[in-house]
Structure formats: C-alpha cells, structure tokens
C-alpha cells in the first residue's frame, strides 16, 4: 500500500528551478513604478489613490456616508446631480452676484480705482 502511494506520488521535486541564462527583456515597461524598497508604496492608479487619500476626511467617500450629519451647503454633502441644472431655465438669466464668490467680480483696490480715474498716470507717479 505504502509502496503504491510512493509510486503514485513519484519522486520528490525540488522547489529550486533552473532559470537558465538571463536575457534582457526587450519589452521591459519603462513607465515609472514604485521602488520596491520605498517606505510607503505609491498607488499605481488614481482610483487606488482615492481609496486611501485623505482630505477633510476620506476622499473616496461622500460626507453623508461617514455617519456624520451632512452640513447644508457643504462641499460633497450632495451629489452634483442633485444640485440641479448648471444652466438657467429658458428665458431666465442669472446675476453674476448669485454665483459662488470665486466667480464674482473682484472688488477694485483703491490703487486700481486711482489708476482708472487718472488714466493710468498714477501708476507712474
């Protein structure tokens, strides 16, 4: 019985394998990859980066999924589609001052006002 088993299992196969002469791989991928001894491996893709990235909390999860109460008006509180159309309805127009602050006109500084009023002469005064 034992002899049969031994025959069936055959000779012991060493784990060491002869790899033969090493040739340079002509199709080696030249794109930069994380160094194997680097302390924290950099993510390979942007998607995998988003899984671990932190910015005011985990980047990959919207705020309402974190168990905290979504603050109204907070960025990420609602999906963008829930915020409505980005264009005004037909026949309507949006005032520039209704837009978020970054889209509004910047207030002029006194120096700029002076420059406009003096026709630019104050710049050289």
């Amino acid at each position, binding site marked *: 019985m034992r002899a049969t088993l031994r025959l069936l299992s055959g000779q012991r196969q*060493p*784990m060491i394998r002869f790899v033969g002469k090493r040739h*340079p791989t002509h199709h080696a991928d030249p794109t930069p*990859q994380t*160094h194997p001894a*680097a302390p924290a491996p950099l993510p390979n893709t942007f998607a995998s980066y988003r899984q671990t990235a932190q910015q005011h909390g985990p980047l990959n999860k919207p705020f309402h999924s974190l168990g905290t109460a979504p603050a109204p008006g907070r960025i990420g509180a609602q999906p963008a589609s829930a915020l409505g159309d980005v264009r005004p309805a037909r026949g309507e127009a949006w005032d520039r001052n209704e837009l978020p602050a970054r889209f509004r006109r910047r207030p002029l500084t006194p120096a700029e006002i002076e420059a406009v009023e003096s026709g630019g002469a104050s710049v050289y005064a």
Partner: protein
Amino acid sequence: MLRTLLPRRAPARPLVTQFGAANTFGPSLGVSAGQRWRRGYASEADEKDLVIIGGGVAGYVAAIKAGQAGLKVACIEKRGSLGGTCLNVGCIPSKSLLNNSHLYHQILHDTKKRGIEVGDVQLNLQQFMKAKDQSVEGLTKGVEYLLKKNGAEYIKGAGAFADEHTVQINLNEGGERSVRGKNIFIATGSESTPFPGLTIDEKRVITSTGAIALEQVPKKMTVIGGGIIGLEMASVWSRLGSEVTVVEFLGQIGGPGMDAEIAKMTQKILAKQGLKFKLNTKVASGDVGSDAIDLKIEAAKGGKEESLDADVVLVAIGRRPYTAGLGLENVGLETDERGRLVIDHQYRTKIPHIRAIGDVTFGPMLAHKAEEEAVAAVEYVTKAYGHVNYGAIPSVMYTYPEVAWVGQNEAELKAAGVKYKVGTFPFSANSRAKTNLDTEGMVKFIADAQTDRILGIHIVGPNAGEMIAEGTLALEYGASTEDVGRTCHAHPTLAEAFKEAAMVCYDKAIHY
C-alpha cells in the same frame, strides 16, 4: 559669395541613441565633414555617457560596470580615495580592528584550555591601527586601479549640479572643472546621524569614524545605540580593555531585522564577554566635562533619571543620507522626510536621466545592497533591464560570534499573518564547532507552514557571515528547507549545522 549668405547649419551628426538618451547638449568643438569648425563655447565641458557623483561602493562599482559596458564614464569623489565610507572609515577598517582585537582577546583569555601557554601579551595600539590603515590603503588603491583598467575617469573633487546635465567640480588640487553627462548617478552615500545635545569632536564624543581611530584605549566607554555599528565597535574596545556600556532605546539589540530570539541569545553571549547593556533606555542629555562625559539616562517610557559617566561616548544611532553641497536645488530634486532621494524602480529620480543608488536613497544602508544597485542601474541604462531582490539582502554583524540573517524574522511574519514553521540547530551539537571549542550560537530556519519554502534564515555563531551566503542563495532561488536538507554538506564543517537546522524544519535532525 552666395555661400556666405546661406544660413549656417551645423554639420549633420548622428545622435547617440545607443543608451536610450539622445544627445541633447549644445554645440561642441569638432571638425565637420567640410573641415569647418563648428560654432562652440570657449570653455566647453567634457561630455560623458555617465557621470557618477560619489566614489563609494555604489559609485565605483557603477563606474567599473559602466566602463565594462563601453560607456564613457567619470566618477567624482571628494575624499581623495575611492571606496567611500565602507572602505575608508566603515566596514573594512572595522573588520581589521574586529579581527585583530578578537585575536588579542583570545590570546589573553582563550588559550590555556587549548593547551597553549602564552607569556606576556602586550597591545601595541599604534601598530594595531597601522595594520588597519594598510588594509584600507591596499584596497582603495586597488579600486583606483580597477577604475583605470576599465577606462573610467576618476576626478578628485566635490561635484555639484550646475544644471540637469552638467556637474561643476571643485577640484581637490584647486581650480574648477565641469563635466556633462547624458546620464548622472547620485551615489553620495550617508553620514552618521548626530545626537542632539552632543557635539561630535571625534576624540571624546565620536561616531564610527572616530571609533576606528582612537589613540588610546578609553577606560570607560558608552555607546549610544545597540545596532550593528554600535555593537561591533563596543566589542572592539571592550576586548582591548575598555569598560563598555551600550544604551539602547528599544527592547532588543541588533536593530531592525534581527530576530528577537537571536538578539536575546546574542545579548547573553556579549554580556558574558563583558559588555553591559541598558535596553529600553534613552539618553536625556549629555554634559562634556574636562575629565569625563556625563550622560543622563532614563527609561524609554519615562522614569527615574540615572547618570552614566564615560571617557568616550560613541554615537551610533544610525546614518542619514548625505546630499549636502550637491546642488539638488539647481535641478529641482527634493528629498523625502528622512533626506532620501525619491526614486522609481529603475532608480530614476523625477529627472529620468538622473538616478540615485546606495545609501542616499531607499532600502537598507548596506554596502552589498549599494553594489547590487550600482550594477542594476548601469544595466537599466545600457540594457533597459536590471534586477535587485530586496527580499534577499543579507545582514551581518561581525561581533564574536557573528550574527547573520536574511529574509523575514518571526515578528514580521506574525505581523503579516503568515503561517510558518521554525527549525533550529545549536552549534553545541555540531562536530566542527566542538573541535574548535566554539560552540555558542545556533542556526534558525523559518519556512512557510504549507509549502516549506524558506522565508528567513537567522544565524548566531562562528562563521555566520560566510554561512548566510548559502541561505541567501536558497532564498533567491525559492528553495524549500527540504532542498537544503537534502543537499550534501561536507563533514566536519560548521555548515552541517545549517543543513541540520533545515532538516529540523521539515523533519528531524540527525545529531540533535
């Protein structure tokens, strides 16, 4: 007449694309096919295929390898002798001191039981150091010859980046010179990390550099840091008669990587030799007085302060990458929070033709690792293919007995949740160790519980540093403990302990 009106055009010259990087340099002097001088700058820099900043182990090996590959290469080193920290003030001189201090110690304490009666034994420290210097000089000169033999230019001076392709050199003999390279390797190595609050003078407060050149044996010595460098130097001066105390912040000696069981055994053996250990202890402050240096130490987690006085304090808390004066800001290269140059898997910095190898970048700060990287980096330049297995880099501590390991230790495997099995064999059961009266230590194999593939090998014992080569080869080729155990080892040798430890791992040892 009409010829002068034609726009001047540089004579057609094929771009050198053999090594991946096209020649992007400005005009250089040369005679065109039409025997007309090309427009050129008056002080044009030399143009090389590869410029290496640093002539340490990484730098000189890269220079030799590149020379063998037919590249036009220059190696810049400011020390005045090649070999870097390793050959000049590191591995090599310390091995000379370790070997000779061991002989001295053995003659003093380990001859009677061997039947050798020894008379008056005296230490001649001057000659002791001279022997060390001779080994260093012989080896550094040998490296210089090898560079010459392989057509690599050796420039003595301090190199700094002028731009992405130009290295400006302040020559040691005075004057300046610039070299331009299609590829540039940064191989500037590392320096000892200073201890805050203690000023290194290399006489009384020393780093490893001062520890290999003390002019007299200190009565009392304190070593801050129980890693490899600290313990090797502690061994040397302890054997020569110094009373040495090692202060280590962590709970075990040997630094990261050393297996806890091996570290414990090593500590016991070293303590028997006279070394004193203060583990889990931190140095709070140091006061360098005219007679002695007073260190205030306390438990790492906070506790009662204690005073420790010494004639010499060795700071051996680690090493940090050395990039000072390299002009990294001129090319926009940055280092990480630990001062290491950030590279990709082909050793490229964010400027692809500038690569970094050795201690100045990621990975363990070991000369053999730097050597491997140097070869791989040159191969990436010449063949677009290189290879370093960071999972199979051996570490050796050259105390007596030596400690060596490769692969993972038990703590690392536990943390990774890998199921493993362990096989150990003591040197006290090895015939050769018995005949040598040198039986302290053991060999330990760690293998995957299911596949039997070797995951780590840890040795403390005689000749461990040589023996680990077999383990590294086994690990590199993915061997199982059975592969090692079924390989014939000569009798009587210390290597039989290695084979038997492997046998324990998959079956049983014969002699234990």
